């Protein structure tokens, strides 16, 4: 009997082992072909060498690949867009400034702008109860959902629990890395959870707020929120590198994503692992630093929203636990060594992005990298990393 059992075990392990290690996808270099005009790319910019050196330095420290766009409003040189590192490590394809990448939560600024446009058109009032536009099924079991206003959702003062920090969600999403999540499945992880505080009494970042805002946009406009983004933002601003994941979750030409899961600068590909944010307005944006710059500038110059809406968007409030960060509507003000930065960052599994504006210097910087977690975040996403990038741009 023992011998039979042991043989059975060996057969089973042989079967398992025979399908053990998979090589990453073979992708033709031409798959990543893209085009950015010379005017937009601006490789003749007087600071090209300085800017490119910054990107090369970050790649030389362990960032797989990076794209960046910089615009200095004090000169007449126009925006500069550059890239360094690899778009695809397996196939040794270099990153180009016109590639596309996941930019995660930066979409929240797009969501906020859309809601502010709807408010400008009188289709909603920011102080309406969100529950006017949300179904009972959507709000079921979510504390504060019936009491919070649209403005409180936008500025993260609703107190509503952030589904993404629920450990049950985190383990479930890791357990099934290829799962594509629908909004109600995500909201289930906020149901039955205590709110963080009474609406309007404090601030705390919550992705759940922006799932609700996406549903509010759909309720008012009668179409998917990402279609509304296309009509109101992508097309008018000619954001040629921007799309929403729901339309094509993993476009063939998206740069490969990588995670440094064990914090050893040893990365594995994770391009297909971001299925939790394909269909909700808290993430899921696919874009490029140039388009993020165009979008951010359109807000600062009041072309995509009115000056009045911009003033509303930038009525800063700070949470009780942190005086250094200031919440607006879909935007943050962060204090840096170089003055205030208006900012939003985002990430997906294997991707991270940031867009920021320095009002004192009138400088825009946006970047996207195809790697995160472990030691990579410290190079591009943490405060010190951002200050390093700013320092090397404004010097």
């Amino acid at each position: 009997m023992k011998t039979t059992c042991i043989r059975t075990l060996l057969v089973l392990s042989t079967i398992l082992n025979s399908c053990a290690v998979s090589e990453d996808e073979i992708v033709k270099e031409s798959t990543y072909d893209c085009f950015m005009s010379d005017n937009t790319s601006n490789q003749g910019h007087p600071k090209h060498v300085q800017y490119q050196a910054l990107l090369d330095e970050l790649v030389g420290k362990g960032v797989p690949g990076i794209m960046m766009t910089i615009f200095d409003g004090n000169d007449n040189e126009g925006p500069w867009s550059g890239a360094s590192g690899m778009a695809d490590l397996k196939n040794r394809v270099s990153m180009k400034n016109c590639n596309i990448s996941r930019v995660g939560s930066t979409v929240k600024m797009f969501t906020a702008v859309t809601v502010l446009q709807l408010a400008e058109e009188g289709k909603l009032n920011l102080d309406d109860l969100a529950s006017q536009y949300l179904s009972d099924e959507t709000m079921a079991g979510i504390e504060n959902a019936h009491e919070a206003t649209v403005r409180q959702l936008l500025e993260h003062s609703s107190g509503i629990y952030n589904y993404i920090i629920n450990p049950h969600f985190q383990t479930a999403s890791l357990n099934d890395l290829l799962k594509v999540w629908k909004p109600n499945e995500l909201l289930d992880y906020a149901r039955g959870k205590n709110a963080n505080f009474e609406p309007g009494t404090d601030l705390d970042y919550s992705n759940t707020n922006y799932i609700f805002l996406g549903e509010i946009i759909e309720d008012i406009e009668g179409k998917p929120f990402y279609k509304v983004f296309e009509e109101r933002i992508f097309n008018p601003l000619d954001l040629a590198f921007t799309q929403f994941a729901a339309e094509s979750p993993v476009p063939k030409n998206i740069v490969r994503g990588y995670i440094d899961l064990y914090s050893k600068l040893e990365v594995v590909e994770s391009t297909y692992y971001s299925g939790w944010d394909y269909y909700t307005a808290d993430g899921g944006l696919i874009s490029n630093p140039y388009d993020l710059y165009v979008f951010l500038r359109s807000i600062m110059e009041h072309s995509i929203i009115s000056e009045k809406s911009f003033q509303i968007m930038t009525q800063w409030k700070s949470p009780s636990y942190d005086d250094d960060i200031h919440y607006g509507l879909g935007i943050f003000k962060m204090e840096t060594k170089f003055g205030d930065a208006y900012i939003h960052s985002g990430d997906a599994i294997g991707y991270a992005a940031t867009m920021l504006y320095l009002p004192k210097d009138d400088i825009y910087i946006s970047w996207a990298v195809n790697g995160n977690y472990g030691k990579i975040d410290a190079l591009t996403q943490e405060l010190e990393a951002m200050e390093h990038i700013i320092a090397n741009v404004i010097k």
Partner: protein
Amino acid sequence: MRNLKKPWFAKGLYIILFFFLSPFVMAQSPVTVAVFNESTSMPLSPPKIGPFHPGVLTGSDITLYESDRNKTYVSINISYTFHKKLYQAITIGLNLGYDYKMAYGGSLKTGIGIGYMHTFPVREIYSFQSTEYGLKKAKGNSRFIPSVSFGIGQRFSPNDFKSSELFVQQQYWLEIPYSPGFIPNMSHANTILGAKFP
């Protein structure tokens, strides 16, 4: 298109299994064999049905105390886990188990354990070397894994305490460390279906 190739350590796995199992063949200790599904789960959460992250386990145990109702024992086991997207792992574990014997050969089982797990990636690894990333042969990662388990068993011959037994167990275990600076430790669960032979 994904290409498959046999891992360099496959032979090593067979050698380890051979040396580990040989004493069991010779000795009089009972042998446990089991298959299981691993999931990333919070402690005490119900078993997850999918996706399937299969594993096989074998081991043996030594009885410390046994009466008509109670049995305590120490077991040692080795297992192999295959998570299609993240890793495969070899685990060696030591467990302190307790069975409460019920009527008709049934039993309630619980146990605590500690173990060592060595994980190997199942995807290609790109390692940063001085200025750029390049493909690297994986040496794997070492893990400490404390565990707690609950289950039920059924002896084939209800009146014979030495009889073969079928059991199902839910084992919750922590992977320490997991992702330093991101998720320090990760909780898992194995849903185990096994048999113990005298």
